[in-house]
């Protein structure tokens, strides 16, 4: 697979997309948020510095999920009133994209689901149950959050978004789902909790003294 290459319209630095269908990326040098159009890259904004964060994961961290290798190519940092969490955009070696979330070192891996007829945000309540892919999910928490920052490549444009409601669901077998209401049409991600050790992560951040 050839990687799309372009130049930053802002500073001219080379921009390499590691994932062929990335829609948005951030220039590593000038921190411009760039969106891919059919012909070129368009600067749509500028990222502010991300707040200090405790995630051990970073762009280019590599790992394994089952028998697939992945590399972290992007990140969204969300905040809510009880803290923040990271959604790391990872590229699997089969070309699919997935999300590795890290909420205070609780890790979960999820994939976009094409399920239809998703509930509207106003209809969802804690304790409610939904069935997708033959699994029964229970709503565990509804979190109003906002985008705090972004890094690297993303499969969609996020740059003008602010508030978003997330609905987290769990099963009795360690599976997990998120309903993402950042767009008018809700999006569903299905996944499972993963153990840090099982991810066999490499190229992690170092912490002083650890």
């Amino acid at each position, binding site marked *: 697979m050839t990687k799309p290459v372009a130049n930053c319209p802002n500073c001219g630095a080379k921009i390499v997309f590691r994932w062929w269908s990335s829609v948005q990326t951030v220039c590593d040098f000038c921190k411009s948020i760039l969106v891919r159009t059919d012909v070129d890259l368009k600067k749509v904004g500028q990222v502010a510095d991300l707040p200090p964060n405790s995630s051990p994961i970073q762009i280019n961290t*590599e790992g394994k999920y089952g028998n697939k290798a992945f590399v972290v190519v992007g990140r969204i940092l969300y905040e809510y009133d009880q803290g923040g969490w990271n959604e790391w955009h990872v590229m699997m070696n089969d070309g699919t994209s997935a999300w590795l979330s890290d909420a205070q070192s609780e890790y979960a891996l999820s994939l976009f689901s094409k399920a239809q007829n998703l509930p509207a945000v106003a209809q969802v309540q*804690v304790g409610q149950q939904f069935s997708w892919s033959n699994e029964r999910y229970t709503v565990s928490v509804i979190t109003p959050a906002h985008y705090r920052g972004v890094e690297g490549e993303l499969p969609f444009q996020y740059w003008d978004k602010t508030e978003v409601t997330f609905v987290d669901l769990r099963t009795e077998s360690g599976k997990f789902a998120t309903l993402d209401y950042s767009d008018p049409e809700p999006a569903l991600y299905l996944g499972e909790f993963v153990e840090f050790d099982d991810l066999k992560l490499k190229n992690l951040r170092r912490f002083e003294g650890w």
Partner: protein
Amino acid sequence: MSAGTPPMSGPPKPQAKALNCPKCGAVIVLRSFGQAETVVCGSCRSILDAKDPNLAVLQQFEAATREVQPLIALGTRGKLRGTDYEVIGFQRRSTNVDGITYYWHEYVLFNPYKGIRYLSEYHGHWNDISICKTLPTAEIGGVTTVNYLGETYKHFQSADANTDFVLGEFPWQVRVGEHAAVTDFVHPPRVLSSEKLDQEVTWSIGEYMYGREVWDAFKLPGAPPEPMGVYENQPSPVTTNVTGIWVAFAAFAVFLLALMAGFDMRAKKEPILHGTYQFNRAESKGESSFVTDGFELTGHPSTLEVKTYAPVRNHWIYLNYALINQDTGQAWDFGREVSYYSGYDSDGSWTEGKQNDAVVVPSVPPGHYYLRIEPEADPSLPGIPYTVDVTHDVPVFGIYGIAFLALLVPAVLISFRAYTFERSRWSESDHPPMDFSNISTTSGDDE
């Protein structure tokens, strides 16, 4: 990964931060690289917003009259399940049951890669606790049992947990005076706890740890506090499966019975001598002894049974036997008493003794033998008839009885130990063992 990618400069390595308390100026170390929500000033007891660069004061609390000292100091590192953890927070919690306040302690442990874990301590009993990632399920029919990862946890107790002392960092918005409804379900050595604060329910799973293990993990000096009593999820010292012991016992008992039956069938039980004699005091002036006819024992050395029968009633007869080998002169002396008494008293009728007696002489080699019998009897009697039967090669069952007891005694002791342990465990619960249904499954049923 790709050559064309410019090198990532990356943020600087995060390090533990030292800040000053906005209230009293004391140094506050933030050890969790931003994972903490709140941090408590160790000197002025202000609860501060750890997310705020200025550490805004969220709450100030009066320390309890007696200062609470964590047994493991903040900043101590230890290895739990192969991972290094640092103690970053400590809280004392209490609950009031029937007017008595019970205290326990919780330690917040941190690893920048693995996140947060907890240790709890109650009177020398420790638990290694983490937040559940999987939802436990209540079994149909109620809240008395909960399923988690394929195991059934029994409701132990529900309590109102009050936070009354905090120190260090917490990954949630901790406040002194906060109440949570805590419900514990046990499956020793594990405990499943639900903690309900406002509308949010958090499930955690704990595994019992001995003080010694904690001391070793954190390399603490001295000895851990002695555990008091039996804790809700303390593993039973009876590590073996009690049901299994009884199954094994039953198998052995059957084996012994089969062995007994086998030896009984193999035994020749050969009648050697049958004699009826009369003891007459009048006739036996002086020497009352006599010898029986001689008999021959053949085959391998084996048992010889001597049975005595005398129809005594409120009398006794005593027989001095000597089994004498004619060939070698070897003698086996043994005395047998036959006595039988009966009567009637305020408790009703009673009897004592038997009219029959049997004795087995073990390992009698083959050869020619006779018995010498010297009777003595109750002087008030004129005469007593008695019968002597000698049988060669009879099975001996006493050894089986001993073997049976040797197996039965430990099985009973182990069961009793398991029973009393479970009883003291559940006596502390919301379900004290009035009926024994709670302790029907003794611990170790799946270890």
